[in-house]
C-alpha cells in the first residue's frame, strides 16, 4: 500500500483525463460524474494519507526509465501540503467549471486537459527526484496550452503562444540546469541535498540561476511574468487553475524545492544567492502591485496581483530561515484560497452580469450579495487585514526577514500592503458604496457557481482565524519546518 | 611499374574524371554517363588490387559483376527519370535550388 497510494492518487486524475478525451461531447452526465467522482476520490485518498504521514509514514513508488532517469513518487510533508491544496481546489474548480460551461462546445477536450493539468500538478507535488519533478513540470506546460487557447479566438491563441514563448525557454533552462548538475552529482533525490563539492562555486551559482529562470517563468517572477496577464483571455475556470491550483503554484513550489532540497538552505546562504533572489522577489511584489493599480479590467488587475502575491512564497524561500519558510509555505495555501475566490467571483460577475471592467462593479453588492461578500473577503485577505489569511503569511514573512538579517523586507511588506489596499479597496468601495448604473442587470441564481466561491472564501477566513490550531496550514507548515526544513 | 599499377592508376584517374563529370555536367544524361565512368574506374582499381599476389582472387571479380549489374539497374532508373523529368520540365537540367514539390510556382521554398 505504501507504494500504491501515491500512484493511485496520480491515477485519480490521469485516468479520468484519458477517458474524458474519448467521451462524446453530448455525454455531460458521464463526464461530470467521472470528473467529480475522481476529484472526491482523490481528496479522500489524500486525507487518508495525511493522517498516516502526520503519524510519520513515508510513501514511495519508483519507475526506473533509463539509467539515471527514475520516475520517483515520494510523499513528504511539503508534498502533501501542496497536493492537498491542489486537490481541494480542483474539486471546487470542477464544480464551478461544470456550472460555468453548461453545454458549450469542446467540453471533453477541456475537461480532459483540465484533469491532465491536475495530474501533472499532483505528479510534481509528489515527485521525489529532480527529474520526476521536471517530467511533470513539462507535462503541466503542455497540458495547460490547450486550456489557455480554449476559446480558439485570436486573443486566446496569442495568449497561448505567449505562454509557450515564456514556458519553453524556461523548460530548456531548467533541463540545462538539471543536466549540468546531475552530470556531476548523479540523480538528485529530494530526501537530502546532493553533494555539490565537485562543482565550483561560480558554476553552482550559474546552475542556481538557471533553476530560478526555469521555475521562475511559471512563478511569474519579474521579468518572466509577461505571459500571466496575457493568459486572462482564457475562461474563468482556467484562470482559477493557472493562478491558484496549478501553474504559478508549481513555479513557487519549484523555488522551494530548489532552495531547500536541491541546494539546501545552507548552501544557498553560503553561495550568496538567497539575497539576490529575495531582492528579485521583492521587486516582483512591488512591480506587480504597481501594475495591478494601473489595470481597469478586473481579471487583469487580479492577474498582476498574482504576480505580486506569488512572490511572497519566493521571498519566503529565498530568505532561507525557518520563520520565512513558514511564511512562504503557508502563503502557498493562503494565496491559493484567496485568489481562487477572487477569480471565481470575477467569473460570476462576467457570466451573470456581463461585467468585465472595474467601473461596472458600482453598487453590485446589493444585487449580488453572496458573490460580493466572497470577493470582499478575498480582497481584504490579500491586503492582509487580520485575522484573514494574508495577515498570517505577512506576519511570518516579516519575522523571517528580521531573523535572516534583512529588515528591508519589512519595508517591502509595508509598501506592498499599502499598494494592495490601493488596488483592492476602491473595488470594495464601488461594490458596496456607489449607486448602481441605470441599466445594471445581473443576478446570482447559479448556486453551482457561487457555492465554490463561498467555500473558498470561508476557507480563507477560517485558515486565518484557526491559524493556531494544529490542522491549519500554519500548523502543517510548522510541522514541515520542524521535521527538517529548519536550516 | 607493373601492368597492375597501370590499371590501378587508370582506374583512379577514371574515378576522378567521372567525379568531375558528375559535379560539373549540367545535362543530366551526362551526369549518368559520368556515374558509370566512376563505377568502372573503381572496378578497374578493385580488379587490379585483387590480381596482386599469387593468382587472381575470384572474390573481387564476383563483386565487380554484381557491381556492374547494380550500376546498370541504377542507370536504367536514372535514365528513365531524366527522360520524364526533361519532358515535364522542358530541359534535361535540374534547377540550382530544389523547388517546392507539387506547387512549383510558389514562393515559399528555400
Amino acid at each position: 500500500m505504501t507504494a500504491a497510494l501515491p500512484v493511485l492518487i496520480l491515477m485519480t486524475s490521469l485516468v479520468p483525463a484519458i477517458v474524458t478525451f474519448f467521451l462524446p461531447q453530448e455525454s455531460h452526465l458521464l463526464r461530470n460524474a467521472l470528473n467529480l467522482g475522481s476529484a472526491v476520490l482523490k481528496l479522500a485518498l489524500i486525507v487518508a494519507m495525511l493522517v498516516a504521514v502526520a503519524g510519520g509514514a513515508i510513501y514511495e513508488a519508483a519507475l526506473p526509465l533509463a539509467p539515471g532517469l527514475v520516475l520517483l513518487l515520494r510523499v513528504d510533508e511539503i508534498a502533501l501540503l501542496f497536493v492537498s491544496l491542489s486537490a481541494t481546489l480542483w474539486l471546487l474548480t470542477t464544480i464551478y467549471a461544470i456550472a460555468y460551461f453548461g453545454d458549450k462546445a469542446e467540453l471533453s477536450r477541456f475537461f480532459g486537459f483540465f484533469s491532465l493539468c491536475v495530474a501533472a500538478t499532483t505528479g510534481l507535488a509528489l515527485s521525489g527526484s529532480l527529474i520526476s519533478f521536471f517530467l511533470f513540470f513539462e507535462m503541466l506546460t503542455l497540458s495547460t496550452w490547450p486550456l489557455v487557447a480554449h476559446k480558439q479566438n485570436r486573443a486566446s491563441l496569442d495568449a497561448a503562444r505567449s505562454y509557450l514563448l515564456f514556458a519553453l525557454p524556461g523548460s530548456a533552462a531548467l533541463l540545462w540546469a538539471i543536466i549540468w548538475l546531475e552530470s556531476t552529482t548523479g540523480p538528485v533525490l529530494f530526501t537530502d541535498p546532493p553533494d555539490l563539492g565537485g562543482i565550483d562555486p561560480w558554476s553552482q551559482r550559474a546552475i542556481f540561476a538557471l533553476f530560478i529562470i526555469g521555475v521562475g517563468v511559471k512563478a511569474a517572477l519579474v521579468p518572466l511574468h509577461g505571459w500571466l496577464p496575457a493568459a486572462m483571455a482564457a475562461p474563468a475556470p482556467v484562470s482559477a487553475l493557472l493562478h491558484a491550483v496549478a501553474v504559478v503554484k508549481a513555479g513557487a513550489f519549484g523555488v522551494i524545492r530548489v532552495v531547500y532540497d536541491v541546494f539546501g538552505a545552507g548552501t544557498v546562504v553560503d553561495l550568496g544567492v538567497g539575497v539576490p533572489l529575495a531582492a528579485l522577489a521583492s521587486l516582483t511584489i512591488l512591480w506587480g502591485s504597481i501594475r495591478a493599480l494601473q489595470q481597469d479590467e478586473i481579471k487583469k488587475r487580479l492577474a498582476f496581483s498574482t504576480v505580486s502575491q506569488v512572490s511572497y512564497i519566493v521571498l519566503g524561500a529565498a530568505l532561507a530561515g525557518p520563520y520565512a519558510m513558514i511564511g512562504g509555505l503557508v502563503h502557498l495555501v493562503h494565496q491559493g484560497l484567496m485568489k481562487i475566490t477572487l477569480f471565481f467571483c470575477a467569473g460570476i460577475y462576467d457570466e451573470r452580469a456581463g461585467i468585465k471592467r472595474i467601473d461596472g462593479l458600482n453598487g453590485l453588492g446589493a444585487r449580488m450579495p453572496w458573490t460580493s461578500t466572497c470577493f470582499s473577503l478575498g480582497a481584504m485577505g490579500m491586503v492582509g487585514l487580520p485575522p484573514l489569511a494574508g495577515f498570517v503569511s505577512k506576519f511570518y514573512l516579516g519575522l523571517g526577514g528580521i531573523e535572516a538579517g534583512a529588515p528591508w523586507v519589512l519595508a517591502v511588506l509595508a509598501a506592498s500592503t499599502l499598494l494592495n489596499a490601493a488596488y483592492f479597496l476602491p473595488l470594495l468601495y464601488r461594490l458596496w458604496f456607489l449607486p448602481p448604473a441605470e441599466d445594471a442587470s445581473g443576478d446570482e441564481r447559479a448556486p453551482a457557481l457561487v457555492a465554490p466561491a463561498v467555500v473558498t472564501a470561508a476557507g480563507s477566513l477560517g485558515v486565518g482565524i484557526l491559524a493556531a490550531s494544529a490542522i491549519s496550514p500554519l500548523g502543517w507548515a510548522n510541522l514541515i519546518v520542524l521535521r527538517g526544513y529548519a536550516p | 611499374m607493373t601492368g597492375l599499377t597501370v590499371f590501378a592508376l587508370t582506374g583512379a584517374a577514371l574515378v576522378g574524371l567521372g567525379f568531375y563529370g558528375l559535379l560539373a555536367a549540367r545535362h543530366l544524361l551526362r551526369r549518368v554517363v559520368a556515374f558509370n565512368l566512376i563505377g568502372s574506374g573503381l572496378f578497374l582499381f578493385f580488379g587490379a588490387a585483387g590480381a596482386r599476389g599469387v593468382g587472381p582472387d575470384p572474390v573481387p571479380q564476383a563483386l565487380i559483376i554484381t557491381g556492374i549489374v547494380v550500376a546498370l539497374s541504377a542507370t536504367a532508373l536514372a535514365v528513365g527519370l531524366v527522360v520524364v523529368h526533361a519532358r515535364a520540365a522542358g530541359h534535361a537540367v535540374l534547377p540550382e535550388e530544389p523547388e517546392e514539390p507539387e506547387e512549383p510556382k510558389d514562393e515559399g521554398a528555400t
Partner: protein
Amino acid sequence: MNALVAVLALPLLGALAAVALPPRAGVRAALLATALTVAATIWLLLAVARRGVQGVILGGWEPPLGIGLAADGLGAAFIAMSAAVMGGVALAARQMMAPDVVGARAAFGFWPLMLLLWAALNAVFVSRDLFNLYVGLELLSLAAVALVAIGGKEAALAAAMRYMIFALAGSLLYLAGVVLAYAAHGTLDIGLLAARDAAPSDGLALALMTAGLLAKTAIFPFHVWLPPAHAGAPAPASALLSGLVPKASFLIILRLWFEAMPDRAGFAALMLLAGLGAGAVIWGSLQAMAQARLKMIVAYSTVAQLGYLLLVFPIAGGDGAAQPWAAGAWTGAMFQVLSHALAKAAMFLSAGLYLAAVGSDRLGDLRGLARTMPMTAFAFALAAVTLMGLPPSGGFTAKYLMMTAAFAAGQWYWALVMALGGLLAAAYLYRPMAVLFARESLIAPRPVTRAAQAVPLVLAGASILLGVFSAPPFEFMQIGRPDAAEEGL
C-alpha cells in the same frame, strides 16, 4: 530456420507475390506479408531478448568467404522500428494508396516497393558484410527513389531526380571505401576487419565510406535533396522515407565507426561529424520555420532531427567509447532514431489525412481542422512532443541521455545545440499546431474515418510510450554491444 531469415525472406516473397498477382490479390498478398513480417519481428525480438545475438552464416560459408548476418540488440531494435512503421503505413495505405485515390499505376507500384524497401532495411540492419551492405543500400535507394517518383507530378519527378543523383554519388563513394577496405584487408566482414591491423589506407577508406553514407543520410550540407523528395512523395511513402530510410545509412556509419574501425577514428574527425550534425540541427530547423506547407515543415524537421544523431560521435566514439558515459550517449542516439521514426511516420500520415480531407497542406488551408479531426490533431501534437524532446517522450529520453553524457564528457556545447534544437523544434512545430487549433475553418473537409485517424495516433502514442517505458529498450539495445557498459552514467 530462424526468425532472422524470416524477417528477410517474408517481405521479399511478399513483394514478388505483389508483382505476380492481379491487383486485388497483390494487395492482399502484400498485407499478408506485412502481417507475417511483423509477427516474425516479434519472434526475433523475443529470440534476441532470451538468447542474445541471433546470427546466420549464410549458406554455411563462414566469413571471409561467405556473408554473416547478425541481429544484435541494436539491429533487432531497428528491425522492430521498421516493423512498427511499416505496419502502420500498410494500414494507412490501404485507403491512401487505393486505385480510386491515386490511380492504377501508383496503386500497383506502392506495395512491392514498400515491401522491397522493408527487405532492404532489414537486410542492412543485420548485415555484417560491407559489400552486402552496398547491395542492400542500392536496393533501398532505388526503391526509395521510385517511391518519390510515384507522386508523378513534375516537382516530384525533379525531386526524385535530385535524390537519385545524391544516392548515386553516395553509393559510389561508399563503394570506393569498400574497395579500399577489401584491398587492404582481404575481408569485408565487420568483425574480421576490426581484428585486422590498421592499414595506412584505412583513414581514406573510412572517410570515403562515411562521406557517401552522409550523402545518403541527408546530413547537412548534403541534405538539399531530402525536403522536396520527402514532401513530394505520397504521405505513406513519405512516412517510410523520412522515418526509416535515412536510419539505414546512419546505422552503417555507426557500425563503421564503433565496430569495424573504432581505433581509426581521430578526434578531429569525430568533432567534424558532430559539427555537421549541429549544422543540420540549426539549419534544418530554421528552414522548417520558413516553410508554408505542412509536409515541407515536417520534411525539414527530418533534416534537423537527423543532425542530433551525429552528436554521438565525439561523445561516445574514439577514446570516449571506454568512458562511463558512452553507453548513455550511444543509447540516447538510438532512442532518437527510434522515437523519430515513430513520430515522423505519425506526422506524415497525419499530413496525408489532412491532405485527403482538404486537398491541400498549405498551413492557411488547415485552419480549424483540430475540431473536425481531433484524433489526427492529437496525433500530430504527440509526435511534436517527441520531436521537441519534451518529457515523457522517447525524444526526451534521447536528449536527456545524450545531454548528460555531453556534459560528463566536458562537451557541453553539444548539449547546448540539443537544447537549442528543442526550442527551434517547438518554434517550427508551433505554427501548424496553432493553425490546426484555430477556430475558423475555411474549407469544409471531406470525412476521414476514425480507423484511418487511429493509425498516426497509435504511432505517435508509441513514440511517447518509448519514453515512459524506456528501461526495457535501453537494456535490449545493449545486447551484443561491443563495449556495453553495465551501468550508464
